[in-house]
């Protein structure tokens, strides 16, 4: 069966698309998890019981207090040595509030960096694939180099030079992770470009811009969506890594940065599991939700794996 036919069979109206999407187990789980975190991020000030960063709030609990529900298992712990539902950090700040505010950074960085990367990647992929020849050769060679250079060390170098701020982190992730998208888009453009409806458009006298935007881009978009989702997942992981290395924005708490402080202040030695466990799990859940959504989109929009002859 031709690729074209497969593509066609899976183009449906938005409503039909939503129906298919929500029949997909992965898609439903992904969207459910993500909605919780988006809700958290939007209503962080309303939900969180304390201000996670405010110096004045230092001492809301004792430093390194375990969460209060620990008393269920060990009644001997004095009341003033436990705190909240997730305990406190090295300065006695509320970890639960930090987790809630941390979702903002993860999602903002994830969406913004991914948007940057997808935007650059799609444009470069379109240009390289459509025009081909020397333009293609140069762009793809450049993409290959960025693909081959170890990502995190490059980002460390860039972030170290540019200085820590959310904007810089977004930029650094964005400009280093477009190549894989550009490659995928390019190969799809190469396929679509050879299709006969494009040739007909040329025979009817259409110009390049018209063909790119009217005929090629719409047929490439499904891949863009899928890759955007996967890319957000990766961007969130990278943001966590950079923050963990101390390259995060010191004015905004993020999950990676919580783990940075945990490491710096010997939380491991103190076996402060309540400090280490929640950020990791949150990162996992958010990343997984995007991977699930990407997977679901891929199954619906890019049916290669599903339809076997």
């Amino acid at each position, binding site marked *: 069966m031709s690729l*074209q036919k497969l593509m*066609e069979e899976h183009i449906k109206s938005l409503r039909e698309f939503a129906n298919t999407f929500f029949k997909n187990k992965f898609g439903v789980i992904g969207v459910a998890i993500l909605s919780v975190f988006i809700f958290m991020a939007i209503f962080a000030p309303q939900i969180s019981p304390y201000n996670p960063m405010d110096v004045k709030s230092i001492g809301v609990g004792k430093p390194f207090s375990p969460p209060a529900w620990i008393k269920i298992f060990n009644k001997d712990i004095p009341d003033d040595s436990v705190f909240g539902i997730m305990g406190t950090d090295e300065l006695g700040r509320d970890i639960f509030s930090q987790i809630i505010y941390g979702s903002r950074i993860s999602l903002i960085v994830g969406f913004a960096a991914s948007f940057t990367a997808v935007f650059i990647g799609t444009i470069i992929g379109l240009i390289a694939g459509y025009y081909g020849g020397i333009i293609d050769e140069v762009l793809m060679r450049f993409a290959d180099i960025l693909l081959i250079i170890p990502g995190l060390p490059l980002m460390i170098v860039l972030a170290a030079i540019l200085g820590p701020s959310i904007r810089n982190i977004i930029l650094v992730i964005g400009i280093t992770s477009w190549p894989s998208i550009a490659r995928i888009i390019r190969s799809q453009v190469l396929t679509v470009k050879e299709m006969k*409806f494009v*040739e*007909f458009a*040329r*025979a*009817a*006298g259409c110009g390049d811009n018209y063909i790119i935007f009217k*005929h090629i881009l719409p047929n490439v978009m499904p891949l863009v969506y899928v890759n955007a989702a996967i890319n957000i997942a990766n961007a969130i992981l990278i943001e966590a890594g950079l923050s963990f290395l101390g390259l995060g924005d010191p004015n905004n708490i993020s999950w990676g940065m919580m783990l940075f402080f945990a490491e710096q202040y010997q939380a491991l030695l103190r076996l402060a599991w309540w400090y280490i466990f929640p950020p990791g799990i949150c990162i996992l859940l958010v990343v997984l939700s995007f991977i699930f959504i990407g997977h679901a989109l891929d199954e619906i929009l890019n049916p290669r794996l599903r339809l076997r002859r």
Partner: protein
Amino acid sequence: MPHVVVISMVDEVLKVINLKKYFTLRRGLLTSLIKREPPKVKAVDGVSFNVKRGEIFGLAGESGCGKTTTGRCILRLIEPTSGKIIFDGKDITNLSQGELKPLRKDMQIIFQDPYESLNPRMRVRDIIAEPLRIQRICKSRREEEEMVMKMLEEVELTPPEEFMNRLPHELSGGQRQRVAVARAFILKPKLIVADEPVSMLDISIRSEVLNVMLRERDTYGTSIIFITHDLSLARHICERIAIMYLGKIIEMGDVETILQEPKHPYTQALTAAVPIPDPDHKREIIPIKGEVPSALNPPSGCRFHPRCPYAKDTCGKIEPETITLEDGRLIACHLYTGK
């Protein structure tokens, strides 16, 4: 604006003179710096023919013989390497794509694959109207809609309202191909290149699509270049036919003459190889062996000589020129040149 019918002095809509298309094998940036001469595939190598007004001209041959490339070159979808294309009395070989644009409404194309030829994200009305919009034919949306509806009726996609807003995946293969026919004929072109328009359709619906196409042709007096590998079909559709082998026309003439009394050894083999839907028919013996050699290194002299049962020494050395026989056919073979 009244449609002014310009009756040209020439009765040929298309004249192709010594058309050549060599594809340079794409190599990496670097390899091309190291080696001087890139390998070339001589897909079309000196093809000349003309198409009369209102005629259906067949271009037939096995895969890789250059028939499709020829069709694309005529429409300047591929840039020819050399030769001349004279369309409607105008030399269009060296026109820029911009200069070509107004001429494009007079020449169109229909493709083989019904699944690849329609944009899956466009509705039938937009697909058929696209040439109108590009050429800015209609003054209003209503006019455009009327033309599209009329076209749908002509290709028997009725009632048109029902098909207007469909997406290609909501159509069957035969219906798609009729949309492709409607799209090609909506500008009332003077020439259509039909590249194997029915070979991917089931037999039982082929003739329906063909008949729609032929009727449109009768209405608008369009000339058609019918590219096909199926000689039985060519026989039923075309008036004249050219048989191609490795980038060259080796025999050309009236379709019945060529197919019933082939003179070129290759045409003889080709016609003998076509299966006949009649169990009583005794199959002729196919005298030739082997498969078509690569166009990258075509044989010297007559390109058919390594497979030809009548090959002589000259055939490997001298390329046969095209001569006209008494019955009007053109042929390129040393059996007839007397060399």
